[in-house]
Structure formats: C-alpha cells, structure tokens
C-alpha cells in the first residue's frame, strides 16, 4: 500500500512544495513557520533517529530488555508533535520517542522503561502533559477520550479564546485500529463531540500482519462511519503532518468535535528488537519507502531554502552527543533496589505491601554475603 489520490502531501519525496487543491487549505500553516521552526523540525528528526539507533545497539549489547524503534516515522511524529500546543494533552502509544523529547521527557526515562527498571516513571504534569506510554495496544485511545471528555466538562474547550482552548491528541498504529478499544473510543468521542484528534501512524505492519489484511478499505475512511471526519496524509512529510494536525487540533479546540488523521508512513526497522522483519517484509516495499524517507526530503527542502552544511553538521553532532550521553547514562543505571517495586503499587501506605516488603527483606537476609 502506498499513497492514494486522497493523500494530502505538502512536500514531495523530491523535496519540493506541492501546490494542489488539497494542499491549498493547509499551506498557510506552513507559510507561518519561521526558519528557526523549520530547522527545529529537522533537528528533532535527525537527533531522534541517532538516539533510536543507539538504543537499538544498547539492546543488542544486553543493556535493554527491548527496544521499540521509530525509524522512518520521524516526520509523522515531529510534525504533529509541534502542532500540539503546550497545554494540549498528548497520549502516546509506545513509539513516540521524539514527541516525548519535544515535550521535555528525558530520553533516559524511556531507556529505563525498556531496560525493565521502571514502568514509565515520568509525571505528565511535570512533562508538558505528555502522558505515559501504553503498551496495551490501543487502550490509550480510551484514556485520551476520557480525558477529552473531562476537558469538555471543565469548560476548557471552545471558550471563545482560541489561545486558551485545550484539546487532546492520541497516537496509535494500524494494528490498534483492529482493537475494540479504538472503535469504542470513536463511539464515545463522536457521541460527546470531544475536543480531540486521533492520530494514526499507519506504518503498514502490526508486528508481522500487514495492514492490507487488517482493513479492506483505507483506514482514513474508518472514522467516517462513526461520524468523525477523517483525512489521510503523507506521514513522511513533516510539513503535512504539522499543518494538517494543526488545522484539526484548531477545529477540536474550537468545539467542532473529534477528528481523525491517518498518516501513511513505514516502519523501516523491526516492530521491536524481538522480531525479524526480513522474514515477512517485501524488499520492494522497503525500497519504495526508502525513497520517501522523511529526513532526506526535508534536508533537500531546507537546502533549497538556503540552509548550509554548517547547520546539518551541527545537527549530526548533536545527535552523536545525545547518543553518547544516553549510552553513558544507560551504563550507569544499574539496578534499582528490589524494594522499589513496592513503592507505587498504592498511593498510600498499604499493609499488604509492608508485609510483602518485610518478607522479601527477610528472604534476602537469609542469604550470606557472597561467596565471591
């Protein structure tokens, strides 16, 4: 599956702006972007890809239990991530590393989670409303819808002051669209006309099941049956991702109800480090999407606007620095004390946790201190 006639594209794979009837609606959002903002888009995409590769290597070196790569999906994430305003709430799946970074989550928090020493460990309230990763496929669509209903009940949307209005954006993949949770979220969002954007990154694979087996129709049509307008974009086009998400979040904040965006992208890596995509993936597909790479085309675009080598070298160095920093801090992580597992089971002190902690301490104390 690749792009369709309905796919909104603002930047072609060759790196030039697309002018069409479909793009005319969204180009004004792009025209308002400053050079600094455009550079920031590129910086985030490049740096997170470098981080992603480093994290995958750390997994292969035994430092992480698992890594979930976002390779190839940087544009869908960076564009939509910057479209969200600071007071909007973001509900990620588990692959939105760059959006976490944009919202101020220290990347080491994600490393800790996939090392198996935390359950997430960041407080959304202290990280610009970036909520925790949800590993259960699609559940976050319900969390987000509930939160959006709350925003609505609090009267924080459609206030008449567009700068104060709040909305929710929730990320999920094509596999999640096959889950009941996502459909249920559509039902509630449509019923209550919640201020939210459903952002689907269609990376074409639910682990090893292709999207073509999951849906007979293009997924952007799915939401219309629930009464939610849907749009399909080129998810490897950071400008389309930014502009279309901005337009739809504006509508949601303004009280026009939920919206659905299908971003066509491709998972260039494995689903996680635990699977082997060469066993199910077609080389032609990979070829097609390599040519549609989000970073390459955006670099071409920036160069055409006059950006020079110095900037790209600086960005590459920043990526290396982050990778090196993350490696160093990963190696220093060690293991948390076993007692940590009891700390956040309940918000208040709990006698069962106390007794289990005491049992474990007693058990540990039954061992003599080391033969070696």
């Amino acid at each position: 599956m690749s792009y369709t006639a309905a796919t909104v594209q603002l930047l072609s794979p060759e790196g030039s702006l697309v002018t069409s009837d479909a793009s005319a609606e969204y180009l004004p959002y792009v025209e308002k972007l400053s050079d600094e903002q455009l550079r920031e888009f590129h910086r985030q995409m490049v740096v997170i890809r470098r981080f992603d590769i480093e994290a995958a290597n750390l997994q292969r070196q035994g430092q992480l239990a698992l890594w979930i790569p976002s390779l190839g999906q940087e544009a869908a994430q960076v564009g939509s991530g910057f479209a969200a305003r600071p007071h909007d709430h973001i509900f990620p799946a588990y692959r939105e590393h760059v959006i976490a970074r944009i919202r101020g989550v220290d990347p080491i928090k994600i490393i800790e989670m996939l090392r198996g020493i935390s359950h997430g460990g960041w407080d959304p309230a202290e990280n610009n409303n970036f909520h925790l990763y949800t590993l259960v496929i699609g559940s976050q669509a319900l969390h987000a819808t509930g939160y959006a209903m709350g925003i609505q009940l609090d009267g924080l949307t459609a206030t008449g002051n567009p700068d104060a209005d709040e909305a929710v954006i929730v990320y999920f993949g094509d596999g999640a669209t096959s889950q009941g949770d996502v459909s249920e979220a559509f039902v509630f969002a449509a019923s209550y006309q919640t201020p939210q954007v459903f952002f689907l990154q269609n990376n074409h694979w639910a682990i090893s099941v292709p999207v073509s087996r999951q849906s007979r129709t293009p997924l952007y049509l799915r939401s219309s049956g629930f009464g939610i307008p849907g749009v399909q974009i080129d998810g490897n086009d950071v400008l389309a991702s930014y502009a279309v998400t901005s337009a739809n979040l504006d509508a949601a904040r303004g009280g026009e109800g939920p919206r659905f965006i299908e971003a066509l992208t491709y998972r260039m890596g494995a689903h996680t480090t635990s699977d082997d995509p060469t066993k199910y993936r077609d080389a032609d597909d990979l070829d097609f999407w390599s040519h549609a790479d989000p970073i390459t085309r955006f670099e071409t675009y920036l160069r055409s606007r006059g950006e020079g080598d110095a900037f790209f070298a600086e960005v590459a160095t920043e990526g290396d620095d982050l990778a090196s920093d993350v490696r160093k801090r990963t190696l220093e992580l060690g293991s948390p004390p076993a007692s940590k597992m009891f700390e956040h089971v309940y918000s208040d002190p709990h006698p069962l946790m106390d007794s289990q902690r005491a049992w474990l301490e007693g058990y540990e104390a039954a061992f003599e201190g080391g033969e070696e």
Partner: protein
Amino acid sequence: MATSDFPLPDVGEGLTEAEIVHWKVKAGDTVTVNQILVEIETAKSLVELPSPFAGTVSALLVEEGQTVEVGTPIISVSSNGEFELTAPAVDEEMTGAIADTARTVAAAEEKPGAVLVGYGSSGHGGSRRRRPAEAAPAPAATPTKTPPPSSVPAAAASSIIAKPPIRKLAKDLGVDLATVSPTGLAGEITRDDVIRQASQASVFRNIQTPEWGTEREERIPVKGVRKAIATAMVQSAFSAPHVSIFTDIDATRTMEFVKRLKNSPDFAGVRVSPLLIMAKALIWAVRRNPTVNSSWTDKEIVVHHYVNLGIAAATPRGLLVPNVKDAQSLSLRELASALEQLTLTARDGKTQPAEMAGGTITITNIGSYGMDTGTPIINPGEAAIVALGSIKQKPWVVDGQVLPRFVTTVGASFDHRIVDGDVASRFVADLASVLEEPALLLD
C-alpha cells in the same frame, strides 16, 4: 591495558541461547563502539551484535558453529589507550538475580539448567551472586536460615484484603470488613465471607437484650384488638374440637413456578410469593373437599360454595384476619393483586371490620417468620386453617438419591365436628400435591 568480556545478550525477550554463526572481526582487530562484531542465530532470527566497547580484540572466546547460553562471554576486547574502555558488562546484580530466579524454577521442576528468562544459566552467569548459606540449589531448601514461610504471607492483623467489588458489597450490606473472618488465599475476604457475615448479622439483628423492666410487674389492660383476639381464640378452642395434621413436601417446583411468574411480564408490578400458590391450591382443594369450607351452627352445617379467603396478618394492632372476598372467582393475577393489597392494608393498620367479616377459611403464613409449622387455632365460624411453613433447601430423597430440594411442611387444623380425619387428610394431600406440582392448577 584493561580487558573486558562481552557476555552473549538475550536479544529477544527470554531467549536462552544462540549459535555463533559468523565472526566479523578477529583477534588483533581494532573495534569501535557499535561496530558489528558477530552474527548470531537465535531461536527467532539471525541477529548482528554491535560492539559495546572500543579497543582491540584480544580473543574470540567462542568458535563459529557453537551454541552457547546467554551470559557466556563470547569476545574479549582490551582498551588501546586511545579510548576509554567502557565496561558495561552485564550488570552482575541483575544477572545474578535473574539467574537465581531461574535456578529456583529449575529446582522446582527438577530440571537443572532449564531457565525461563534472561541470563539464567547453570554455568557462567549464575554463579556470581551470593548464595544461600547452605548453598542448596533452591533457597526454599534452607530452612534454618530462611525464617519467612515460602507461601505468600498472610497479611498483618491490621490489614484488610478485599477486592473493590467485595468492599462495595460489604458497604451495601452494612458489613464491617474488620469483623469478617477471611477464608480466601492469604487472608483475602471473599464474597461468601461477606454474605455469611451479613446473614449472621441479620439472624442476630434483634439480639440486643433490653433491660429488665424497672417495675416488678406490669399491668396491661385487656381491651380492643387484644380482647377480641382473646375472645375469638377461647371461643374457637373451647367450642370446636381441633385436630391438626402435617405433611412434608418438596416445593421445588413451586419455587420455580414463582420464579417464572416473577419474570413474566403479566405479573410485572405485583408481588408473587409461595403464599399465592398456596392460596390458589387451597381454592382448588376446597372444590374437591367442600366441607372444609363450611360453618357449624349446632343445627346445621353451612357449606360455602365460595371462598372468602382469610389471611392471618401481624399488624401494629395485633393479629388480624382480613379476607379476600370470592377468591374462587379471581384469576391468578387478580388473586396476587388482592393478596398484596390485603397485606399492605393490614400492615398499615388500616384494615376495616368489613374486610375481616364473612371469612370461610384461613391461611396463616408462619413461614414468613422462619417457622416450619404449627397447630393454628381456627378462626371462629370457619372449619379449617392452613399453616404454610418456611420453605428451605433440605436433603430430600429423589429416586434413591439424596438431593437438595426446597422442602416445606403443610399443616392444618380442622373443626373435628365437621371434618373427619379422612377428609382432612385428602384436603391436605391435595394442597401438597399442588405445591409439589403447580401444573395441577391448570386443571
């Protein structure tokens, strides 16, 4: 020059071993961090391993084609001075902990070396951590040094373990969870525990014992309803020679019938109880045995070919026996409605004298107080009174097997001047047969 080993990692969530397929470096080569060192094959796939170190390869520790367990060092790299040798090595504490867990599992299965997750292995990775004092294979086998029990500990006395729905149930039933004896695993309070406590509470809800009266004796004037009751009882007991008979029956089908009626739209909004079935049964049995529904006048016996069905009711004013007029002409639905109305009026203390006059036969529902049966006294002017006892599950023999069935006792008292033993017995047997098989009402 420091040297570090790279232990074979678990690259796929729980793999235990891998084959070294192809080395991409050899001893003496300079390697950088993340440079591909080797291709391995796991149970899942071919995987390339990047170097965790920068330095010079001092030795390849495993030959191509060999399968080694996760945690086995596969390559040594020494720092060449140019790079700081980062030695992540796998965190020993973590490795050891996982290996310990794996050993415990393995010991339990009596299959040493079998591991479920991570770096567990009987050889290299596993020996690093401190061992139990006796160095027994499984920690559970070190009783002298292992004070805690191996099972999940029961919670401290102060704690209450109950799932949220059970807590809600307890709240709804007014049960204080602190007073409940738990029977669940590790002291968890179960649904049954709460229900048992609630039913005990209801049994004992009147157990508060009032103080003795302050006066030595209390004199209550005999008047009103009490006087009327007394007069009627004496008149009945000392003019009509009473005979009482009883029979135990299996009322399971009646209970099922009641349940079906309750679920039926036709009976929506009206109270349906076993008393209704008994009332209908009585009307049917009266037709077959008319003399039980009659009055003694010394000169003649007046047999009523209608039923003014009396229901003995406890009211704020005392015992009253209002009756449903011409109950024989009512449908089951109408009878249910009439009984409900009669009961509600009596309970409110609003029963009028006319509603109590002209009764022809009576039912007393002592089962509603949990009593099995009794020898009721006939309402004056009538010839019979039927007692419906409580209906409870009891062991009952069906086809040679003891089964739990809903069992009750039907008792009745008769004016022996009118009703002989054989008629009385046939009448009670008819009642019993309907309660055992309500389909007879279709007759």
